[in-house]
């Protein structure tokens, strides 16, 4: 009974941890309701003494009924009884919720589907907790499902879980454990007496004893629980972290990220045209890479064609594809054959770029070092964010460009491309002339690659097409007009048309939008608004997506457009492969592509590249080694704090010890001396105490100075001189503490040093090192503090018990 309720409380408090994942509070009430339903089911099965396996079934049934009532009551019979259509409705909502979760980044808006999914999840956890705690009677094990619930926000959110939510959840679990303990003790009899000694020696006898008998177990349980929670919350704050962790931020969602978590898809094409139309050139970004070659920087990949223009499917950024999680997903379709050129590029986005939520990147990015929550779309490797903006950002990207040879590309003919069908999809009403044109252009092509080349050649052949920015619009006939009639357009038309024709001949294609390589200014490459560009990417199984360049370059075309090596018209020298879009094959011949077998660990390659070429700015985000080094150094410094504190304390004490006490001449001086002497002796005694603690021969609290001196002398066989020094200290302490007039106190620093040396000689070298570097005596203070804290809890508990007893008595 009690356990069932406690299990419900624990599940519900654990669900608090989910709060940063949602925008509103609706999920909270649904979760509360569903937990109540599960608890009710648990109470029923306890009441009816149902077998353990029946309880979860009942819980599931209760959950189902509750969810039907909440989400599909209009389709259910009498609001609650599930019918076929209500089940279908729930299923639909679940699917919608699942899709929403995939689409949105946390905190997600509260659609019905998401709430349903959350409530269902919480219900499953609650049922599992109830099963473990109340049925199988393994309350501690029920921490596992609760932990599973707690890991959900921890994995999804990059920010730390809010500490108050953690405390609430932990208290819930502890109350479950306490309930279990009470139940157990209730079944088996009297609680075990667990008391602290301090309690045993003070306080009123009858009250203390009575309290100990009834509540000792619960009391110590609570104490341990509170201490554990306190440690769990405070300790991580004290530990050094590699990155600054924002501690004590209230709630993860509370950072004021605002709404707008759904990815807003800009109209890239309109944007592109707008940039190209700008009267003056503005710098968009600059970049530098380790082989100092210009590269196309892709921002968007448009994959769907509706007959008029290319559009973008909503990109999906799963939490595991965050850039900070290490390497991005593998580039699709890239097999082991092509040689790989690993490049590291440092990109700086201008501050003036507004509302850019996609990163311009060379394709294919493998790993990105960037601040903020950026995620990669698995299919297209676009990197975007729902809350960050790229303006002013500086980041580094490692790319692995495939460098296929013409032979290799030729050899890929006939392999069925394993891509999403949307990259091949063409609308039904595609004009027949266009279809015919595709067949006509590629007629005589021996391989798919050959066909792609022929398509590109069709656009670039001098006289065939004319580059002009003034081309108008996207009417339904725009494609046909461009391809068949006018043959006038700019990069967008070229890219889209080539992509359409490629699809027509069975080559998966998409349209990339971004920037060309720009112009070199000093050591960096500068990309301006007039470098906005669009180009088609064609897919070859085994190599992946390759950019082609149908747009004319130079003065009569897109100024900085470049035709990739593999896409240059044959015959061409392809032995010395080079990075993709380069001015010429010869200039890149010196580039040493890395062997494909070394491509496995991209992270490592990335480092090597960095080190070998040394083009990374040194002040940039530091390498892992340096981070580890700094972390270790910080840790070391932190570890040395006790040693430093010890040294400070010692020197302070020794200074007070060196004070000379003269013979008191009158009563006033005598009192002063006695006061000063007291201080001196206290310092000596405290220092001796700490020395002993550090050497592991700590004084018992019941050990008098005299007994201590005796024990040390015997146990460690001190020589006469040290023994005399020790007993001088002990005697002085004794006199100061207990005698009417302590008399003359000699300075004790020499004695103290002698004793310390004598004791140090008896312990091992390791122990001595530890006493210096990590003195336990400093840590003892912390322990004392903790004990005092626990005593505080005890006191509160005692007050409560007394009050209860008084109420019972009265």
């Amino acid at each position, binding site marked *: 009974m009690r356990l069932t309720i406690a299990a419900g409380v624990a599940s519900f408090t654990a669900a608090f941890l989910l709060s940063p994942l949602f925008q509103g509070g609706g999920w909270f009430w649904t979760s509360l309701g569903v937990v109540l339903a599960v608890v009710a089911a648990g109470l029923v099965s306890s009441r009816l003494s149902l077998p353990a396996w029946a309880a979860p079934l009942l819980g599931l049934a209760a959950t189902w009924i509750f969810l039907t009532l909440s989400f599909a009551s209009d389709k259910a019979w009498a609001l609650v009884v599930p019918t076929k259509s209500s089940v279908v409705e729930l299923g639909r909502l679940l699917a919608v919720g699942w899709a929403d979760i995939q689409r949105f980044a946390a905190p997600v808006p509260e659609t019905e589907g998401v709430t349903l999914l959350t409530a269902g999840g919480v219900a499953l956890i609650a049922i599992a907790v109830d099963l473990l705690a109340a049925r199988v009677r393994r309350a501690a094990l029920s921490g596992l499902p609760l932990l599973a619930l707690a890991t959900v926000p921890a994995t999804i959110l990059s920010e730390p879980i809010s500490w108050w939510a953690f405390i609430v959840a932990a208290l819930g679990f502890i109350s479950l454990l306490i309930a279990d303990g009470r139940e157990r003790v209730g079944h088996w009899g009297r609680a075990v*007496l667990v008391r602290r*000694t301090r309690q*045993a*020696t*003070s*306080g009123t*006898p009858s009250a*203390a*004893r009575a309290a100990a008998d009834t509540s000792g177990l619960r009391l110590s349980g609570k104490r341990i629980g509170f201490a554990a929670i306190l440690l769990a919350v405070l300790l991580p704050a004290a530990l050094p972290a590699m990155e600054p962790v924002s501690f004590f931020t209230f709630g993860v969602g509370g950072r004021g990220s605002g709404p707008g978590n759904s990815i807003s898809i800009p109209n890239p094409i309109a944007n592109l045209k707008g940039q190209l139309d700008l009267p003056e050139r503005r710098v968009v970004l600059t970049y530098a890479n380790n082989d100092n070659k210009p590269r196309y920087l892709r921002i968007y990949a448009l994959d769907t064609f509706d007959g008029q223009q290319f559009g973008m499917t909503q990109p999906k950024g799963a939490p595991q594809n965050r850039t900070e999680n290490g390497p991005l997903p593998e580039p699709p379709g890239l097999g082991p054959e092509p040689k790989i050129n690993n490049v590291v590029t440092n990109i700086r986005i201008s501050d003036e770029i507004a509302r850019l939520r996609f990163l311009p990147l060379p394709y294919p990015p493998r790993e990105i070092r960037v601040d903020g929550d950026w995620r990669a779309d698995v299919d297209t490797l676009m990197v975007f964010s729902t809350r960050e903006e790229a303006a002013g950002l500086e980041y580094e990207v490692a790319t692995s460009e495939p460098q296929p040879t013409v032979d290799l590309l030729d050899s890929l003919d006939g392999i069925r491309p394993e891509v999403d069908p949307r990259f091949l999809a063409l609308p039904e009403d595609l004009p027949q002339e266009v279809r015919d044109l595709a067949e006509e252009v590629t007629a005589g092509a021996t391989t798919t690659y050959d066909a792609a080349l022929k398509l590109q050649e069709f656009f670039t052949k001098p006289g065939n097409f004319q580059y002009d920015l003034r081309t108008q619009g996207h009417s339904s006939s725009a494609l046909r007009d461009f391809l068949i009639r006018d043959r006038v357009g700019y990069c967008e038309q070229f890219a889209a048309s080539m992509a359409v024709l490629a699809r027509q001949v069975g080559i998966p294609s998409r349209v990339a939008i971004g920037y060309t390589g720009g112009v070199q200014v000093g050591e960096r490459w500068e990309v301006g608004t007039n470098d906005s560009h669009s180009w088609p990417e064609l897919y070859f199984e085994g190599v992946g997506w390759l950019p082609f360049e149908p747009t004319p370059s130079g003065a009569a075309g897109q100024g900085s457009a470049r035709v990739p090596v593999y896409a240059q018209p044959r015959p061409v020298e392809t032995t010395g492969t080079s990075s993709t879009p380069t001015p010429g094959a010869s200039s890149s011949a010196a580039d040493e592509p890395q062997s494909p077998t070394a491509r496995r660990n991209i992270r490592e390659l990335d480092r090597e590249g960095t080190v070998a070429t040394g083009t990374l700015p040194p002040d940039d985000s530091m390498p892992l080694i340096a981070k580890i080094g700094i972390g270790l150094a910080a840790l070391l410094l932190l570890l040395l704090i006790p040693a430093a504190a010890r040294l400070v304390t010692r020197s302070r004490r020794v200074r007070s010890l060196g004070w000379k006490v003269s013979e008191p001449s009158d009563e006033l001086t005598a009192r002063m001396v006695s006061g000063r002497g*007291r*201080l001196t*002796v*206290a*310092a000596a*005694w*405290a220092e001796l*105490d700490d020395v002993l603690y550090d050497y592991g021969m700590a004084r*018992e*609290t*019941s*050990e*008098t100075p*005299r*007994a201590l*001196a*005796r024990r040390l*002398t*015997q146990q460690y066989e001190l020589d006469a001189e040290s*023994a005399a020094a020790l*007993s001088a200290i*002990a*005697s002085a*302490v*004794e*006199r*100061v*503490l*207990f*005698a*009417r007039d302590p008399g003359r106190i000699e300075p004790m620093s020499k004695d103290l040093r002698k004793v310390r040396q004598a004791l140090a000689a008896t312990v091992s070298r390791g122990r001595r090192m530890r006493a210096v570097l990590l003195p336990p005596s400093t840590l003892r203070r912390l322990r004392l503090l903790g004990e005092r804290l626990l005593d505080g809890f005890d006191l509160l508990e005692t007050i409560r018990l007394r009050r209860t007893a008084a109420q019972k008595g009265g």
Partner: protein
Amino acid sequence: MAVTHDVPPQLDELVSTAHRIRQAIESVIEGKSDAVRLTLTVLLAEGHLLIEDVPGVGKTMLAKALARSIDCPVRRVQFTPDLLPSDITGVSAYNQQTREFEFKPGPVFANIVVGDEINRASPKTQSALLECMEEHQVTVDGHTYQLDAPFMVIATQNPIEMEGTYPLPEAQRDRFTARVAMGYPEPTAELEMLDVHGGTSPLDKLEPVATTAEVRALIEAVRGVYVSQAVKKYAIDLVVATRHSPDLRLGASPRSTLQLVRAARAHAALAGRDYVIPDDLQDLAIPVLAHRLLPSVEAQGQRRLPEQVVTDLVRRVPVPETRSS
């Protein structure tokens, strides 16, 4: 190891006198310096001593030796089941000549009273000792007679498991400052005993080494020994700990706190110190406290003696110390 320091002048005489008495007693009792020391402590603390052990280990010898070495009136009472209270306190007898009742003082009218096998007498007789021990006075037929100072009862008793004994009631046990167990002598000490005391009783040769006035002065000096607040607090802590120990059914009384501190004064003075240190209390905790305590049923079941409980408590109660600034 003795911690050397100067003996204050006012204790000089005390230390030397006490030393003489100790030597005198130890010439009779071999190898029992602890028991002898405790006996002296109790004497100087104006308390009473209970010597408990099996027959024949020198209980009575110790009592007699102390009595002999001080030049003062000593009376010895052999407690038997038929002993009457008036046999101890004294009776009023009718004087034919003066035609008046005259008080015939009993054996308690002495400076040192040796009560042999005190637990063989009936409780009624035992309790007759109570008033004398606590109040240092005797009341017979409405008249109160003051006892001489110093007044010390040294009672011996056989362990309560022995046949024909009446265990001392708690109230009476509480009146004894300390209980000491003689224990069997070491083999070497026993051998020496045979060699030296084989023929004659050593008691016969014992001459008094101190006078009553001297002892009174010693007691006065002991009263002047300083007890700091911290030590008083520590004494209270120790006694209170016995009251809260789950191993004890009956803890020590406030009277025992008083006696503990008094005995500690004497203990300190005997060591030549004019102030009490926690060590004094620790040394005396078992003899002063253990005989007053009643173990709980659980402790009895575990065969834990009060002595062991007190040892544990002494080990647990923290001594007063300076708080480092």
